[in-house]
C-alpha cells in the first residue's frame, strides 16, 4: 500500500466520520436527558434537504453568490428545520408522553419523506437527475485554512485539508464532554436523564431540560445532514437514503461511545476507517479469499468486506459489555417518559 493510498483512506475516513459524529453528539445530548430519538436519521435527512433548499434558492436568486451568505442561509435553514423536528419529538414524547421508539421511527419516516419529496422536486426544478448543484455553497463549506492546509506537506494533507465543519464538531464533542461533567447545567441534565423524579424533587425543571436537550441535540445532529450534502457529496442531492443509513450508524455510535462525546472523536473516524476498508484489502488476501469462496470478481468479495465496520462494532460492543463497568451504562431513564404523579 502506498503512502498516497493511506492518505486517501484517512481522508475518506475523516469525512465519513464527521457526518456521523454530528449525529452522535446531537443524539448523545438528547439521550443524556433520557430521550432516545430513533428519529435521528430523519432529522439528518431534514437538515440535509433544508440546507440544500436554502442554498439552492439563494444561489438561484443572485448572479454571484456571496460565500458568507451562502453559509449563513444554509446553516440557518438547517438549524431551524431540525430544531423544529426536535421540538415536535419533544412535544410528543415529553408533553404527550408518547412512546419514544415509535415517535422516533415515525420521525425518521417523516424526515426521509420530506427530504426525498422536496429533494425530488428540487432535482426536477434544476433539470433532471444529477443536475442539482449548489457549487458556491459547497465551496464555502469546503473552505480550508490558509497556509496550514497547503504549506506543511503531509501534515497539511492529513490534518488540515478538511472543510471547517470537521473541526467545529471536534470542538463541540469535547465541549459537550466538559459540559456533561464539569458544569452545573450539564450535571443537572444528566440527573434528569438518570432519575427525573429525583431531579424534579431537587427543584430542577425536568420538562425544560428535556425540551432543550432534544431541540438542541436535534439541531446538532441535523448539521450532519448539512455536512453530508455540502461536503461529503459536494453540494448535490440524490434520493438514495445515503444520509439515512449514516444516521443509523450515528445512533449506533452513541451506544458504541457509551454516551461519552469524547469517545465519538475517535469512534467516528474508526467507523469511517472500517467503512472504507473494502477498498484497501491487500491483493494477496483478496485473491486467497476469492479462491476460498469460489468467486470470480473482486467487487463480489467487496460485498463481504463491507460487513467489517458492523462486525467490528459488534465485537467492541460485546467486549465493552463483558467488562460491565458502571459508568459505561445508558442513562437510567432512557426511553421512558416522566409523569410526576406516577409512583
Amino acid at each position, binding site marked *: 500500500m502506498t503512502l498516497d493510498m493511506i492518505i486517501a483512506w484517512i481522508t475518506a475516513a475523516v469525512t465519513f466520520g464527521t457526518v456521523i459524529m454530528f449525529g452522535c453528539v446531537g443524539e448523545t445530548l438528547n439521550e443524556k436527558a433520557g430521550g432516545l430519538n430513533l428519529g435521528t436519521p430523519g432529522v439528518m435527512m431534514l437538515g440535509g434537504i433544508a440546507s440544500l433548499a436554502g442554498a439552492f434558492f439563494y444561489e438561484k436568486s443572485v448572479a454571484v453568490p456571496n460565500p458568507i451568505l451562502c453559509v449563513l442561509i444554509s446553516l440557518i435553514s438547517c438549524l431551524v428545520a431540525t430544531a423544529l423536528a426536535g421540538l415536535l419529538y419533544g412535544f410528543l414524547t415529553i408533553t*404527550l408522553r408518547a412512546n419514544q421508539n415509535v415517535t422516533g421511527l415515525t420521525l425518521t419516516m417523516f424526515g*426521509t419523506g420530506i427530504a426525498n419529496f422536496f429533494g425530488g422536486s428540487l432535482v426536477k426544478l434544476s433539470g433532471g437527475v444529477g443536475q442539482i448543484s449548489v457549487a458556491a455553497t459547497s465551496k464555502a463549506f469546503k473552505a480550508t485554512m490558509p497556509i496550514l492546509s497547503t504549506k506543511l506537506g503531509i501534515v497539511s494533507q492529513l490534518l488540515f485539508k478538511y472543510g471547517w465543519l470537521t473541526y467545529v464538531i471536534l470542538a463541540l464533542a469535547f465541549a459537550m464532554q466538559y459540559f456533561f461533567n464539569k458544569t452545573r447545567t450539564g450535571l443537572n441534565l444528566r440527573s434528569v436523564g438518570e432519575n427525573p423524579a429525583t431531579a424534579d424533587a431537587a427543584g430542577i425543571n425536568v420538562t425544560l431540560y428535556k425540551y432543550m436537550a432534544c431541540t438542541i441535540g436535534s439541531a446538532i445532529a441535523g448539521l450532519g445532514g448539512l455536512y453530508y450534502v455540502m461536503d461529503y457529496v459536494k453540494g448535490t442531492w440524490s434520493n438514495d437514503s445515503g444520509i439515512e443509513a449514516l444516521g443509523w450508524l450515528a445512533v449506533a455510535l452513541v451506544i458504541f461511545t457509551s454516551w461519552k462525546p469524547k469517545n465519538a472523536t475517535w469512534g467516528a473516524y474508526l467507523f469511517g476507517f472500517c467503512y472504507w476498508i473494502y477498498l484497501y484489502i491487500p491483493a494477496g488476501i483478496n485473491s486467497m479469499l476469492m479462491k476460498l469462496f469460489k468467486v470470480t*470478481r473482486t467487487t463480489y468479495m467487496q460485498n463481504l468486506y463491507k460487513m467489517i465496520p458492523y462486525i467490528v462494532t459488534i465485537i467492541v460492543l460485546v467486549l465493552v459489555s463483558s467488562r460491565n463497568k458502571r459508568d459505561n451504562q445508558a442513562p437510567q431513564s432512557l426511553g421512558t417518559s416522566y409523569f410526576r404523579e406516577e409512583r
Partner: protein
Amino acid sequence: MANRQPILRIRKNEERSFLSKLLIKVIFIGIALLISALFINLVTKLDPLKVYASMFRGAFSTTRRTWITIRDTALLLSIAVGLTPAFKMKFWNTGAEGQILVGGLVTAAMMIYLGDKLPSGVILLLSFVGSAIAGAIWGFIPAYFKARYNTNETLFTLMMNYVGIQIVEFFVDVWDKKQSHSVGVINATNQAGWFPSIFGQQYLLNIIIVAVLTIAVYVYIKYSKHGYEVTVTGESENTARYTGINVPNVIIRTMLLSGAICGLAGFTEVAGISHTISVKTSGGRGFTAIIAAWLAKLNPIVMIIYSFLIVFLNKGAVQIASDFNLNEYASNIISAILLFCILASEFFTNYEVIFRHKEEH
C-alpha cells in the same frame, strides 16, 4: 385557594370506556387527514378530496388491488407479530430487517439449488424450515450476548441487519448470471418453490400462514407458561429472578422464536410474493412493523388493524403519486402525519386535562 392551582393540570385516567377511546382515536385521525389535506393543497394546489378518493382507488379499485393490499397487510402483520414476543420482554429487536433478509435468502437458495431436483412441495417445506432456522440464528446471536453480558440489543440487532444486507448483496452477485446485480425471477418457468394458488387465489396461502402465526403468538403470549414468563421478565427482570424464572433462558428462547417468525416473513415474501431476492426484500418493513406492533400495544389481533392502516396509506399514497404526478415519497409524509396524530391521541386516551375553574370533589 383555587387561584393557586395551575391553569392546566394533567391527571391519569385509566377508566375511559372503549367508546370514548375510539371516539378520541377517530377525532385524531380526522385531524391527521386535515393536516395532510392542508399539506397536499399547499404543495400541489390539488383538491384534497380528489386526492383522498384517488388514495382509496389505489388500495381497492380492482379485485387484484384489494388482494395485493390484503397480501401486504399480512406480510407486515407477520413481522409485527414476530416482534411481539421480543418487545413484550422489552428486548428492543430492531433487527427484523436482517432476520427477514436471511430467511428470504435461504428460501431463494433452496429455490435456486433444488429448483429442478425436487418437487415444489418439498422445496417449500425445506424453505419454510430453513428460513425459520436462519431467522432464529439471526435472533439468537444478539440474544445470547444480551443474556450473558447484558450487551445492548438495540445496537446489536441493528448491526446484524447490515451484516445480513451484505451477505444478500454477496449472493445476489454470485447467483446473478448477467452481472446486472439482480437475481431476476427465480424458477420463472417451472415455478418450483413458489406458493401454489389455493382456490384460484394466488395469495391465499400467504394469508393463511400469517393468520395461523398471529393466532399462535396471541395464544402463546396470553395463555402459555412461556408467555407468562416473557411478560414477567419484561415487567421486571428482578421480579422474574425472584419467582425462579431463568431469565437468560427466557431471553434466548424468546428471541429464537421472534427471529424465526421474522425469518418466515422473508420466506413468505420470497416464495409467496416476489420470487426473487435483493436487499429490497425487507424494504424497511422491519422498522414499520415496530410502529404497527407498538400502536397495537403488542396485541396481535389489534395489530391487524394497524398493519392494514399503514399498508392502506402506503398504497393510497403511491396511487396519488402516480395520478397527480407527485413524487412517491408523499406517501411517507402522509403516513407519518397520521402516525404522529395517533401517537398524540394516546395521550388523550390515557390522561385527562383539567382546567382550573373546574372544581373537583
